[in-house]
């Protein structure tokens, strides 16, 4: 799945926990210099935010009309 923001997307909206977390961490490991990834969820993943901050990643969040949180993450 691709998205205008980035081709690297984890669409976790219908996944059962902890799959969104593990899929995100796996994709972060595959990103190259300057690349960004997008996580799609129907909630804000505060525990993931804490891990991202601890690992020095940056992220920005946008809530779109259908209730999806688009979380753009980069190393």
């Amino acid at each position, binding site marked *: 799945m691709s998205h205008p923001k980035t081709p690297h997307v984890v669409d976790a*909206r*219908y996944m*059962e*926990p*902890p799959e*969104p*977390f593990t899929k995100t961490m796996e994709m972060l490991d595959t990103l190259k210099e300057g690349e960004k990834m997008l996580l799609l969820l*129907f*909630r*804000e*993943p*505060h*525990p*993931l*935010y*804490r*891990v991202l901050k601890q690992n020095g990643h940056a992220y920005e*969040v946008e*809530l*779109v*009309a*259908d*209730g*999806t*949180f688009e979380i753009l993450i980069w190393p």
Partner: protein
Amino acid sequence: MQALLSFDKAPPFAAPLRFFLTAPFFALLAGLLLVWEGPSLLVSRWTPGTLAATHLLTIGFMLQIMLGALIQVLPVVAGVNIAHPLTVSRWLHGGLSIGTLLLAAGFQFGEPDALAMAAIILGLTITGFLMVVAPPLFRVSSTSPTIRGLKFAMLGLVGTIALGVVLALALAWGWSIPLLALADLHAAWGLGAWGGLLLAAMAYVVVPMFQLTPGYQARLSWWFPVLFFACVGFWSVAVLFELPLLAILAQVVASLLGLTFCIVTLRLQSQRRRARPDATYRYWQLGLSCAIFALFSALTVTLWPAVKDSNEWPLLFGILLITGGFLSFIVGMLYKIVPFLAWLHLQNLGESKVPAPAMNKILAEAAMQKQMACHGLAVVLVMGAVFAPEWLARPAGFAFVVANVFLIWNLAGAVHRYRQHALLIARKLAAL
């Protein structure tokens, strides 16, 4: 579930568990009161026994679990960390339990001193909770409808407890205030601005996560809390300044907003991707159906003055919303949270060397479904008892007692199995 209740920053199991295990005993007491009092409990919502039973359910059951669960989930749904969760839980649990028993005794036996003591203990306990939880919550920015909803719900709790304390002290010390109008407002703040908004804020997260449904539309979930809160605010202004038309308008809009939320949630659940309906799903379906009927009955009472003076309709509204609605939502969520917390703590005990048992080994689906059937029957009987109290009041009370004994059995069984597995894991780790 892991995203909702991650071990990272999770309080100890004992923190929320004390609330979850104690709350059904208060519902059990309410059932026993109905068995004891019989038809007289359903004569009007103003009888001493009815007021006692209502507060056993709303504070003893609902508020216990709501505040206990908030301590557990605030770090995960809002990124808000509470300092010393175990100490906060102990004080909160003690204050709520003693305060509720005193309040119920004060109503039931007409004891002004018990009422005044209850008002002071509950007022101080909930103020203490708010002083611990509100500052960190209001410091985080409202990046999601859940955080925004939680902030409005906290304001709702402030309004509820302020009105409740004033009403209890007025009853105890004979102050001259418009008791009936303020009691209606107290109920609106408690069941709407606090309970309803807290439920909506949590539903935005748990409905898509538990049932794998689509999310709530952003515009609806963003504006629902502020519009609903505004309605309760206008209703309060209308009571203070005696503006009956404004009160009716606020009540109608609040009921329509509540109906919209329930119907949207039902629609989302109909689009779920989890094929098999579990106890949580069924409990939510029951809760939403009862809440829809309750809100229609509230609209009828508001718009049809002849009905307003009857005893049955306001009672039916309260029974539908509290026992059919809130109790169903809450038990449905408990059935997800308790097995998951047990599993999470066992997994942590196993240190990745000894696996935790599956969640259905902690609490079996069949036991939850059977308990739900008892609860459903109790709700139907209590509703029937409003119209045929002589025939149905005591059977309804008995059914309610059975449903809550079953709930205690299920929850205590889950904790017992958790302890057994914890011992087993410790032995296996020692043998490695």
